[in-house]
């Protein structure tokens, strides 16, 4: 067997090798097209992260990770959205144009996704509103088996530096909305419910969601 033949055999074996539960694979996301309209307005916040150079690092997740949230039930602190419907949060429509986002009232508001059963969560991606370069204040992402989020709460992301939203102070950076959404490494957190908080944004006092995707294993 020459070198070339040996290489082909190894490659074939590797391709056919079944992935174990411990194996990690890249999390592939379907991103909407950029939708920035208008001239971006520079934003000054104390904890705003610096612009990233280059593509977003790929998040490695356990093999067998799937999208858990598509079409799942959504509830919210504001039961009467200004525009849109709660179902838009998990409907898979991420373009961000008129008619694809839900807008909640001013102040601290939350949305919550019921995955239907406890799950091991690998990643959460949230698109608040990517038609304009803006920053949402006090973004907090939590998981729990308690629909009231009174016990067993694990916080996965929190950029509310002064605890003005009441979910505890966090050290994560504020970030500018883009078509990429915010990718949060859930690191295998377990829970049935995912709750996301925000408290207005740098354009207005309102709260928006185009889509939230929760990836993991049932």
């Amino acid at each position: 067997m020459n070198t070339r033949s040996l290489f082909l055999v190894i490659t074939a074996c590797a391709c056919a090798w079944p992935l174990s539960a411990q194996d990690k694979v890249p999390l592939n996301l379907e991103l909407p097209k950029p939708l920035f309209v208008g001239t971006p307005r520079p934003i000054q916040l104390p904890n705003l992260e610096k612009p990233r150079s280059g593509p977003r690092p790929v998040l490695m997740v356990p093999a067998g990770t799937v999208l858990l949230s598509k079409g799942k039930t959504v509830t919210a602190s504001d039961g009467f959205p200004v525009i849109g419907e709660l179902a838009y949060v998990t409907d898979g429509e991420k373009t961000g144009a008129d008619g694809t986002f839900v807008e909640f009232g001013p102040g601290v508001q939350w949305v919550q996704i019921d995955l239907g059963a406890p799950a091991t969560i690998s990643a959460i991606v949230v698109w608040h509103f990517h038609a304009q370069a803006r920053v949402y204040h006090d973004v907090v992402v939590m998981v729990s088996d308690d629909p009231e989020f009174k016990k067993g709460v694990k916080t996965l992301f929190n950029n509310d530096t002064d605890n003005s939203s009441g979910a505890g102070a966090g050290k994560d950076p504020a970030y500018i909305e883009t078509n990429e959404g915010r990718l949060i490494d859930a690191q295998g957190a377990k829970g049935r419910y995912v709750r996301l908080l925000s408290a207005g944004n740098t354009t207005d006092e309102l709260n928006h969601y185009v889509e939230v995707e929760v990836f993991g294993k049932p």
Partner: protein
Amino acid sequence: MSDSTTPSNPTTRRDFLSAGAKLGAAVMASPYLVRAAAPAGTGGTQSLNIGLIGCGEQGRVLLNAALKIPDIRFKAVCDIWDYNRSYGEKLLKKYGHDVKPFEDYREMLSSTELDAVIVATPDWLHAEHTVAALKAGKHVYCEKLMSNTVEGARSMVKASRETGKLLQIGHQRRSNPRYIHVRDRLLREKKLLGRITNLNGQWNRAVSADLGWPERFTIPESKLNAFGYANMHEFRNWRWFKKYAGGPISDLGAHQIDIFNWMLGVNPSSVMAGGGADYYKNHEWYDNVMAIYEFPTSEGMVRGFYEVLTTTSAGGGYHEYFMGTEAALKMSENPKYTKLYREAQAPAWEPYVEQGLIKKPGAGEEGAAPASKPWEKEEKPKFTVAAPRTSVVDVRETAALSAWDIPVTLDKAIHQPHLENFFSGIRHNTPLSCPGEQGFASAVTVLKVNEAVAARRMLTFAPGDFVA
């Protein structure tokens, strides 16, 4: 030119009388000088009942700005698209306004007790909606550009005169305290720029996809046709089609070309321009336009270049640049882009620093714009800028000008002061920042650019062109 005004107040009546003499006699008959009848039983903070025609993107921007103003009660919203109408209605109800939705503006005007109407529909409907509202006895705040035709704009001024109702055009920079401070204190009172010789302005944007719409919100074509639109694509992207709008020079350029006229206190005498539908294949209007104006000021000719590009965001976003013999002023709604550049031979500026009119180089915000909206967190950034390790001097260039700052910034949404000025005009006879006559002059100035592009030669303005 004008007397000084405080940074926080709109231009005084005296200023407008002075400016009016330069802008043409028509301004002297402006309805902003008419003592608008105050609503029955008015006091200093009498609530005003407001209706909104056009609940799209710009209508909602105005709603969000108006919601910050005390004693404003929205009573009605109108839009032919269910989606927009519902959006405006629910947004207002979220803030406690008892608002009624309408599809037909005529029904809204006839069935609702309103003191004023805000018009934020596509440009081609401004005249129809504004004239109807004025004739129904309402004061009107109408978005810029006043109209996509000179005749449409003229009909609005005439209706305002005939009815004695106020007409404010949405060139909101005129109510921005920083713009007022610069014009009245720095340029006119202190003549900080010396003799202004040239202008430069731009609004450049990257390419963007056309606006779409979810299938479930599609308006039946028969209904669109009844309201004058060819199809849903043109309805959503009306800014790009000649029937409905004036193109990017009107959408973007109008804001800044209006400021050329306002800062200088004169209208131009000529314009030449080039442009074309260079990139987008499914648009009618020019996506790139470059224009050169001549402004015959009392101190001599001022030449002004303006470009609006919708195929690149290069060149630093949007700003107006006023260049004189002793300094240059870069202005923008974004404080980050605003600087005063002093020529080496100019008189010392330190006295102006002591008077609080300007700030020394390096005293302003060098990073991003400061938080300028009440809902933004106010903590200052904790960062420092490292000094450059080496400096390089190119001896072929004039030495870099020192960059000074302006200590006046707007701490509200950018449209709020202009709306406040309008409401104050209704309540207290405050002179409007952009009455119909001056909005008309700006519309004439802007729309001529498209004519010049088509004619491929210099076109001249007669003084009478600016008189409605």
